[in-house]
């Protein structure tokens, strides 16, 4: 089933907000887990993959930080909030391409300026990664780096990358101006939400409100 990006994003926001709102009682948390699982099934995202990816990071953070400064109750609540937010983030990343995510946010009336920044980030992240790889490869081809020289070489490489990014940003700004930039984001292509999806969202909202009121 192909779900429209705005449906995915809206459901994600609703489930995330509802899940992280206190009080944290076991039956309520269980219901949220059930809703998350149901959502994953609807989006056809593999449950096992999301569970593995979403569990290890909060577990590490919890193990590292939780035992030190937080009380026993807070530890579980922190873990729960981290788990939910990560799970939702990972599901969004798995269910939507970056362009679809922008399309979803655009239809939910997110500010154009923010979406432009997101679009530019998506577009140039790969290019930046290419630059990092090029610098690394060129170091290896020139004989690698000795451990004692590493800080100086890394500082130099960071400088090169920073200059490249700055120049790239300047070129993009010029291109945007030449193409008549007026802060209007083009409409991103993606399937539109069907009536059934809108009904599903409304039902989800009602269920979540009922959970909190009950």
């Amino acid at each position, binding site marked *: 089933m192909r779900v429209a990006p705005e449906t995915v994003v809206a459901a994600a926001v609703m489930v995330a907000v509802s899940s992280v709102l206190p009080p944290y009682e076991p039956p309520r948390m269980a219901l949220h887990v059930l809703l998350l699982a149901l959502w994953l099934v609807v989006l056809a995202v593999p449950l096992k993959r999301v569970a593995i990816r979403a569990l290890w990071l909060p577990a590490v953070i919890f193990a590292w930080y939780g035992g030190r400064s937080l009380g026993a109750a807070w530890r579980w609540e922190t873990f729960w909030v981290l788990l939910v937010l990560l799970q939702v983030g990972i599901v969004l990343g798995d269910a939507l391409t*970056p*362009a679809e995510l*922008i399309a979803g946010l655009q239809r939910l009336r997110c500010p154009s300026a923010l979406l432009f920044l997101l*679009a*530019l980030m*998506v*577009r*140039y992240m*790969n*290019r930046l990664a290419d630059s990092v790889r090029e610098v690394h490869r060129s170091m290896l081809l020139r004989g690698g780096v000795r451990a004692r020289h590493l800080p100086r070489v890394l500082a130099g490489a960071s400088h090169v990358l920073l200059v490249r990014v700055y120049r*790239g940003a300047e*070129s*993009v700004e*010029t*291109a*945007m*101006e*030449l*193409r*008549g*930039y*007026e802060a*209007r*984001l*083009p*409409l*991103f*292509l993606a399937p539109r939400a069907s009536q059934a999806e809108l009904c599903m969202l409304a039902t989800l909202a009602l269920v979540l409100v009922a959970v909190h009121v009950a």
Partner: protein
Amino acid sequence: MHAGDVGTGVGGGSRCVEPVVVSGLSYAYPDGKAALRGIDLRVGFGEKVAVLGPNGAGKSTLLKCLVGVIRGVGRVEVFGMPVEPRYLKQIRSRVGVLLQDPDDQLFLPRVYEDVAFGPTQRGWSDDAVREAVLRALAEVGLEGFETRSTYNLSLGEKKRVALAGLLVTNPELYLLDEPTSGLDPSAREALLSHLERLSAAMVVATHDLDAAARLCKRAVFMHEGAVKAEGSVEELAAFYEKSRSGLLT
């Protein structure tokens, strides 16, 4: 006389005004090195002019001056409007610039949105944008590329998408900076065949003599920031040899 008083008047509303009039244009980089020295150039309606010359001759700098990316000293008019901040918006709405590196030009994640950028900024309706984008992509032979990532395209495809981004707003003047650089023969051929079909005025900065000869009847040869000769591309080919041998002064 004010530069803008030439022709039929500032604003460029009349079709009688030449697309490009450059007279005595000079420009120096911030470090003081002269990039352009007293350039004179005129381009008529529908005329295609090649700007030839070795690397560092000032070809790209001249194109940048024509759209106000940098400002030199001298008279520069595009469609009768002096290239000054208050006219830049009007000028740029009638000029399509193809940058040398398409990665700079294609700044949105997917092909459709990138080509749709220009019409969207002009406030076209979504339906009009969609129709124009699909038509422009068809013109450059890239039907079905709408949802492709701009990052994953080949260089030739990127150049064609960048060209579609210009075609979509139907500019009256094209400024092309090294359009064929880095392309393999088939990608070069595909791009040139699209460029040959354009009827609008064109200034092509290149050192691809074959491409220049195919696209332009007239050419100027630049060396060290100055125009050294003007004529047909074939006539000016010899100047490359002279510039390499240091015989050009």
